[in-house]
């Protein structure tokens, strides 16, 4: 449309999917999420003269998006929800990784072989378990995991979003994966054998 702007619409639109998922996870409503992203892109396009450095474009856009989402909560008087997602800072159990390993670094228990994980993806009940396991992560860990795996931010972007150091990020993701894995194993994969037998019976 306008060549004097630094940022083309196409360049902005590239970040649309990530922004949409980010908004969706918080707003839980596709229409609202879509609106928030639209408003963000419009605001970004209008303010693109203020933007410096393409490397941080997505971070800048998400910064605007967060304001739009906060505006929404303010309008609907549900600040509490944003506070929950945005301001959880310290998680309790620093030592919980140790439960997975013995002091010499060997597994304490540890992963068994899962029978046909691909088949699980097709079963409705599996997704309820998956959701439970994901929700059982401590809040900050859940946020880090979701920003990375559900929203699709790069590791360094997640660090910026959550003010985590690199080292803390690696530790957090390691624990999140250990926990999720264990939860799925206990609640689904170690159970599914009996379930399947029931179904075919």
């Amino acid at each position, binding site marked *: 449309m306008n060549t004097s702007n630094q940022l083309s619409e196409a360049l902005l639109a590239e970040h649309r999917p990530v922004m949409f998922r980010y908004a969706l996870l918080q707003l839980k409503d596709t229409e609202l999420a879509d609106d928030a992203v639209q408003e963000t892109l419009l605001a970004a396009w209008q303010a693109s003269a203020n933007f410096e450095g393409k490397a941080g474009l997505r971070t800048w856009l998400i910064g605007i998006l967060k304001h739009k989402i906060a505006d929404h909560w303010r309008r609907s008087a549900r600040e509490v929800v944003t506070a929950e997602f945005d301001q959880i800072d310290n998680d309790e159990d620093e030592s919980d990784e140790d439960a997975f390993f013995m002091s010499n*670094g060997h597994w304490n228990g540890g992963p068994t072989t899962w029978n046909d994980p691909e088949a699980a993806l097709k079963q409705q009940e599996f997704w309820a378990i998956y959701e439970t396991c994901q929700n059982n992560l401590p809040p900050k860990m859940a946020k880090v995991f979701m920003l990375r795996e559900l929203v699709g931010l790069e590791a360094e972007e997640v660090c910026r979003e959550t003010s985590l150091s690199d080292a803390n990020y690696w530790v957090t993701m390691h624990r999140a994966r250990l926990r999720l894995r264990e939860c799925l194993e206990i609640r689904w994969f170690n159970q599914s054998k009996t379930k399947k037998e029931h179904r075919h019976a």
Partner: protein
Amino acid sequence: MRSCRDITALVSQGLDMKLSLGERLAIGVHVMMCSRCRNFQSQTQFIRKAAHRYTEQLQQQLDKKS
């Protein structure tokens, strides 16, 4: 030889950044001999796939609702 704790930390890192050749070798040698870490490796890949699928489904459900 690195412990299972260290190897799984590396495996986890490898999902979020490119590891050095030395690190990838260390993982490769370890998982050849350690079935639990081998399971961890494939299961974390599975979890990533599940997380993506979960997001797609969430979006579809919400689409239907509105």
